[in-house]
């Protein structure tokens, strides 16, 4: 595959600066030693492991980065961040990239992970705390796998480790307010 890097850089002008502003990290510092990928527990399943994500960023290859499954599979374990000899918070960059990809509607790479985040935060917003059973079942239904982990769920229930009903905190209104205000502020930006 041939890519005209000059044209790409022109077309995606400002992308690198936005990543820098969002993450506070200067990816130009990366000299491709590969330590992040060597230690990445999920690197084996990524289309573009962390070292390559850093290089793609340096070249402003926005589509390759934001459409990758890597930014979603990253478990934010921060092994990369801890070991980077140039002190780049790579896991922090991955966070910023996920957020950018979601805002641009680029979520098809690993839809189930994005869905999990939505269902999880929906629970927090509604009750102030996560209702684990509701999140597990909500995620199963929305991924069309209603019986996934049914054995574990049943086990937890029999062991008294599953709360059937959610418990709402008194300050639930404060939590809903935080969600609303964050959205307003970010939309205005």
């Amino acid at each position, binding site marked *: 595959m041939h890519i005209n890097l000059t044209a790409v850089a022109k077309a995606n002008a400002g992308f690198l600066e936005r990543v820098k502003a969002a993450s506070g990290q200067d990816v130009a510092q990366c000299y491709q030693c590969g330590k992040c990928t060597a230690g990445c*527990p*999920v690197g084996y399943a990524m289309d573009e492991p962390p070292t390559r994500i850093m290089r793609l960023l340096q070249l402003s290859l926005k589509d390759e980065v934001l459409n990758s499954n890597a930014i979603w599979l990253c478990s934010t374990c921060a092994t990369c961040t801890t070991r980077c000899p140039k002190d780049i918070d790579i896991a922090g960059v991955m966070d910023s990239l996920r957020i950018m990809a*979601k805002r641009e509607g680029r979520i098809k790479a690993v839809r189930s992970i994005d869905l999990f985040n939505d269902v999880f935060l929906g629970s927090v917003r509604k009750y102030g705390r*996560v209702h684990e059973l509701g999140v597990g079942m909500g995620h199963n239904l929305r991924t069309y796998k209603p019986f996934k*982990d049914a054995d574990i769920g049943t086990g937890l229930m029999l062991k008294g480790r599953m709360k059937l009903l959610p418990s709402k*905190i008194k300050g639930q209104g404060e939590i809903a307010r935080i969600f609303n205000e964050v959205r307003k502020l970010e939309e205005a930006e």
Partner: protein
Amino acid sequence: MKYAYYPGCSLHATAREYDQSTREVCSALGIELIEIPDWSCCGATSAHSTSHLLSVALPARNLTLAGKMGLDIAVPCAACYQRLRYAQIELDQNEGVREKVAAVTGTVYENKADVKSLLEVVASLDPEYLKSKIVRPLDGLKAVCYYGCLLVRPPRVTGFDDPEDPQTMDNLMRACGAEALDWGYKTECCGASMGISNEAITLKLVRDILQVAEKAGADCLVAACPLCQSNLDSRQTHINRAFGTGFKMPVLYFTQLIGLALGIEPARLGLKSHFVATAGIVKFAT
């Protein structure tokens, strides 16, 4: 010793035995825990994957509540711990974020409460005092301590132990009479919430951890995080089915093992609610 206690969502449900054993052990060791009234979720990975501001604003509410109590915070869950620490650092060092958080929460944050992991809190006791309380030492028990990711990484945020070869839990286990084995997977990732959203990855990561633990000759794994414990314990049947392995490795919370050594009844430590039976481990406490 008195702390504001932030159990987090899991400890009220799927990790009830971590909550139970935490309360039992702290009470036996003279650590008073006062649950933060009306605490809310820290937002976990889903919040910081969605919005940076949200990931700081959600913990900020809890930091403020604890600040009003005038106490430092003890956090048993590794994920909650790291999110509260991260939010605190952002609020202290980033004025722009502080102003935005004030706008969205309607409260001005003041840095009053320090955030500590429960592991750190228990380890801060005088080792001689802890040893004096041990009535049923875990003689002969070979344990591997599993710290996972978020207790020790990134060190800029956590910073209470070595991120590659932490020793805090190992030393506690030794104080309880157990042998803490040296092994290489102390801080490898278990896949966290991918157990739900992408199970194949979690199964592979946990398989690797169990394999190394078994090779090291461990009788059990010791955990300090509800999600790690759940992935390591409850998914062993799925792992055995997927990889043709035969794992039956008990995974206990460090508080459960300390509780046993302190002479607390196993039933009061939630030792009957595991997927892999813990009876073989309970026998070591003599």
